[in-house]
């Protein structure tokens, strides 16, 4: 316990304390007076200093949404907590506290400077979210394992590190080890690392680092692979044909179908199954490719549409801007003319003219907007029709392909039934040569059982196919509806915003004119 105020009673971070601190550290002098008049909202505070306050528990900071710098040093904090809301934090000072583990920093993605000097930390971890970390101070702690350094390799921006007065800093190899494993580091324990040291360290630890690097690269490659696969799957999903580029569907048909699996041991069924699978997979792949193609088509359609809409809006905005610029030019000159005019009747006349101008501008802008709304509505409707047609066509084609799958299944079913019945007959006659597995033999009790078993297998298969088809159809339909809804909603939002903007502007202009009027009359 190093703190001089250790003996004092712990204090709670309550509203009063925060208000006091904010007030003290806020603007001074004239601005301070203003601030006092108005009061300062916690969410406007950018920097807060709460040192030497004997704080035991971090609390009540959730309002400081925009805080950039927080100093909580020289307290008796034991646990890092309550900082989740401070996502904009860049600088966090928690030095001279009693923290034992690093935690609770997962939301501080913007943190660049973290000081945990003089605490009781023995392990560096839980810093993964801090991708922008540049300065890390962990001196005077209880870190005793060199492997903690390797953890720091993931911080690509880390340039300054202090680890002095830790158990590991006693180690003979301490400096060399860090220099070797953190080659981008510029400052260690407040000293600049010279190139010579870097080279020496590199040479010394070359083998282990190479190995580490190799592992890291492997990991990286694996991660990238997974990422690529995920992306690929995602792409297929957006085309609604995921897992159709192989035997996935076919396999899933047999996954829960114990009878079907059993029946496959019947003589002749193996080959039958093989050809069935081949044909089935071919159809699946057809669906898959068709789906991707259609997806591409839909995408280009959507892109063209968005581009055209954007262009139209842009053009319309430009027109509006021009109108406003023209108006402002005129308006400013007439305002100054009004200011200089002395005769009251003249002033009134000019003001009337001005407000006429304003309403003219309003009309012009609103006309433009209404025009755009009409144009866009037409375009959107056209797009909607087209996209719905496309989706419909896609569904139709997929359904016909799925029907082929079903036909295959029916065909297979018939064949299987035939084989089963003939096998049953053989068993009944007792001239079956092959040995059948027990499970399978159990089915051949009588005709009903075997027919039921084959039928059940068939039903399962059909169900799977139906399910896949249903899934595809539902998903694409819901995608389509959502897309259309979004487009309509966006357009409505856009329209409302524009109308609001125009009204606001016009109101402002009008009130400016009114103020002028008042002022003049008062004068």
């Amino acid at each position, binding site marked *: 316990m190093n703190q001089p105020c250790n003996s004092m009673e712990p204090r709670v971070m309550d509203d009063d304390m925060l208000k006091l601190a904010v007030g003290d550290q806020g603007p001074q002098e*004239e601005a301070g007076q*203003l601030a006092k008049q*108005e009061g300062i909202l916690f969410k*406007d505070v950018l920097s807060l200093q709460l040192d030497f306050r004997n704080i035991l528990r971090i609390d009540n900071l959730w309002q400081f949404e925009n805080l950039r710098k927080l100093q909580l040093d020289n307290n008796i904090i034991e646990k890092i907590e309550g900082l989740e809301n401070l996502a904009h934090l860049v600088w966090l000072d928690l030095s001279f506290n009693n923290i034992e583990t690093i935690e609770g920093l997962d939301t501080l993605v913007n943190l660049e400077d973290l000081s945990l000097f003089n605490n009781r930390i023995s392990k560096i971890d839980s810093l993964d979210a801090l991708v922008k970390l540049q300065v890390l101070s962990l001196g005077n702690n209880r870190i005793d394992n060199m492997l903690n350094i390797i953890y720091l390799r993931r911080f690509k921006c880390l340039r300054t590190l202090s680890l002095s007065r830790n158990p590991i800093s006693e180690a003979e190899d301490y400096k060399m080890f860090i220099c070797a494993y953190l080659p981008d580091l510029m400052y260690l324990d407040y000293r600049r690392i010279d190139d010579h040291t870097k080279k020496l360290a590199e040479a010394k630890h070359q083998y282990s680092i190479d190995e580490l690097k190799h592992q890291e690269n492997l990991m990286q490659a694996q991660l990238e692979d997974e990422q690529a696969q995920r992306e690929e799957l995602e792409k297929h999903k957006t085309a609604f044909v995921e897992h159709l580029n192989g035997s996935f569907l076919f396999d899933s048909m047999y996954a829960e179908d114990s009878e079907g699996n059993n029946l496959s041991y019947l003589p002749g069924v193996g080959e039958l199954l093989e050809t069935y699978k081949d044909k089935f997979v071919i159809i699946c792949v057809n669906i898959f490719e068709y789906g991707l193609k259609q997806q591409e088509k839909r995408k280009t359609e959507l892109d063209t549409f968005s*581009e*055209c809409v954007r262009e139209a809006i842009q053009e319309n905005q430009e027109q509006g801007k021009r109108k406003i610029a023209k108006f402002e030019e005129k308006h400013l000159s007439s305002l100054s003319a009004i200011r200089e005019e002395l005769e009251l009747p003249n002033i009134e006349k000019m003001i009337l003219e001005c407000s006429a101008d304003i309403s003219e501008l309003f009309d012009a802008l609103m006309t433009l907007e209404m025009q755009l709304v009409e144009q866009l509505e037409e375009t959107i409707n056209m797009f909607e029709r087209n996209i719905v047609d496309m989706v419909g066509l896609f569904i139709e084609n997929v359904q016909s392909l799925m029907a082929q799958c079903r036909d295959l299944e029916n065909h297979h079913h018939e064949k299987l039934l035939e084989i089963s019945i003939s096998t049953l007959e053989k068993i009944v006659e007792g001239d079956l040569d092959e040995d059948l597995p027990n499970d399978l033999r159990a089915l051949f009790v009588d005709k009903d059982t075997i027919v039921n078993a084959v039928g059940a297998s068939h039903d399962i298969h059909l169900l799977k196919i139906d399910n896949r088809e249903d899934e595809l159809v539902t998903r694409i339909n819901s995608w389509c509806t959502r897309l259309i809804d979004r487009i309509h909603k966006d357009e409505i939002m856009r329209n409302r915003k524009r109308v609001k*903007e*125009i009204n606001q*502007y016009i109101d402002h202009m009008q009130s400016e004119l009114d103020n002028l009027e008042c002022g003049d009359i008062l004068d």
Partner: protein
Amino acid sequence: MEVLREKVEEEEEAEREEAAEWAEWARMEKMMRPVEVRKEEITLKQETLRDLEKKLSEIQITVSAELPAFTKDTIDISKLPISYKTNTPKEEHLLQVADNFSRQYSHLCPDRVPLFLHPLNECEVPKFVSTTLRPTLMPYPELYNWDSCAQFVSDFLTMVPLPDPLKPPSHLYSSTTVLKYQKGNCFDFSTLLCSMLIGSGYDAYCVNGYGSLDLCHMDLTREVCPLTVKPKETIKKEEKVLPKKYTIKPPRDLCSRFEQEQEVKKQQEIRAQEKKRLREEEERLMEAEKAKPDALHGLRVHSWVLVLSGKREVPENFFIDPFTGHSYSTQDEHFLGIESLWNHKNYWINMQDCWNCCKDLIFDLGDPVRWEYMLLGTDKSQLSLTEEDDSGINDEDDVENLGKEDEDKSFDMPHSWVEQIEISPEGTNILEIKEWYQNREDMLELKHINKTTDLKTDYFKPGHPQALRVHSYKSMQPEMDRVIEFYETARVDGLMKREETPRTMTEYYQGRPDFLSYRHASFGPRVKKLTLSSAESNPRPIVKITERFFRNPAKPAEEDVAERVFLVAEERIQLRYHCREDHITASKREFLRRTEVDSKGNKIIMTPDMCISFEVEPMEHTKKLLYQYEAMMHLKREEKLSRHQVLEILKLREEEEAAHTLTISIYDTKRNEKSKEYREAMERMMHEEHLRQVETQLDYLAPFLAQLPPGEKLTCWQAVRLKDECLSDFKQRLINKANLIQARFEKETQELQKKQQWYQENQVTLTPEDEDLYLSYCSQAMFRIRILEQRLNRHKELAPLKYLALEEKLYKDPRLGELQKIFA
């Protein structure tokens, strides 16, 4: 003589009157025919027509009161050189040859007009036309091509009609005189042009022939006005962008189609009427314009220039009318016939029939059937063999042999009597001056002074301390009109351009971290101070500063200021923000900076009415007074800064005009101070060294002269003795030296031998170290011996030579002058 002069004067009077008449007539004709566009297919836009009208109205035709006559009275011949006033024997001879030629020609072709061979020049001296051509290459690169030469001649000289339109003139002046008075007839024009063209390497000829009325009177009314000829527009292939599938439809057109159609019909009717009217007008004009049949058609004498193909990459023969400077094909119908043509080397007579203008003429001057030459031995003998045969057949019966009979078959054309033709800018208005510089420390490269506007423009190379690129100004005085452009990449502040007027200063920036793009400061009138104040101590008060900024992508648009205006005098600050991408209005804010006091006497820091703002998307925090206060304080600081910057720039500008020094190349040893110093030091050192050497050179006679009484002249005997003594002494010294070397050599050899002996005796008992020692000694001793040997040999070789050299020296020694007498 009296009578003669009177007669001449009368003639001249008549000539002058006639010329005046011609001129008047030409002018009348011009006035009667308004400039008309003949080719109706060039449909002109209204705008271009208006432009044209304006342009044409700007042209002021000053018809000088004096008559454009150009007679020898007006020419001051007193200062002309002798070659103008007399003929050299060679020229006389040439004239005789020409006379002879002319006589034979008139004898053989009695029905043709006399030749134009040797008109009188301004000094009344007959000169052969070819010698009047003075091929000259002008020092101006602009006058290197035929078109610019022709344009120059046409623009520079004023056209004077021929005294008698049916005859070649009696006088042909030198081009120098023509240039001096800037007047001339067609022969003067073509002589000057031809001289220039031959000088620039063209195969050009003066032509004496017959031209159309228009050509002879420089009447261009029937030509298409060059200003209406539109430059050929490069037809851009407009890539028609296919409308995209979802391109919005244009807003519905709410105009009545019926009305439109009616309107169109009406327009068409009007247009048809207009067209009809125009056509009628056109026809009428055509009728009127049709050239009246010229009574003198084909008889009007004209002179022009023929340029033959072959030289200067001229692809085919063409004519140049020197009056207009236009080029014509040789087939052109304006040129009705050719009598003769000449260049600076020879004279040819056209023997071809000109019934069909010049269309059938073949300009193969080497063909004696078609072109009768006056002098033989010119370079025009590139005739094919068959044609030569032809000419051989025709040889006896025709005029060909008349020149060849002469003894001067290869008579050389004498050198031109005309002085060097010079076109000097003297006497003309200087429009602009360009000065090129090098090696200047301020990197000034080019200074361009426009004399009419008095605008000076300096161009700088990169490397000026202020990164100046272009500086245009009228006066170096500060606070005057000027435009300065900079190499903006070389400047820290990214300044691109600065424009100054007495009341404003505008700056343009590029690539600044604060995104400033434009700053405009306007100044008020200087407040008069009681003390005498100069520009530095009393800067002009700044009335208004306007700054514009590029969009800063790091900031949201509603916080990114696009323009701020500091109305310093009104204590007002206006801000306009950038427009957000999906908006059409931009936020604005206006701060009134009034320091007011409230009722209790406290200073009001900030009140809501001090900041009027319009926000596109009102936000909570911007409504706060504190925010506004801080913004205002920030702006106040910025304003101060801006003002300060403006003043600083003004100060800097004054310093910029300080004296310029030259940079000196390190290779420029004369001007480079450092190298000069170094070189001088070296020279001084060498000089001193030399002096010392001279001083230390031994006086070989001194020891012997010392034996003799000083200050007395040596007698002959003494001199001989002295010489002998000196020589013998020298000989002794040489021998001594040889002995010394010999002695050393022997000593070394002996020692070596001793050592070798010792070595052979003790060879068995020696340690390896001793052996090494011995071996190194041996090699060193051998080295020394060899050196001594070489020295001795050299000495033996050189000693006699040295002896002889001394003897020679002694003979020449002034102190032993007596010796020379003996041997002399």
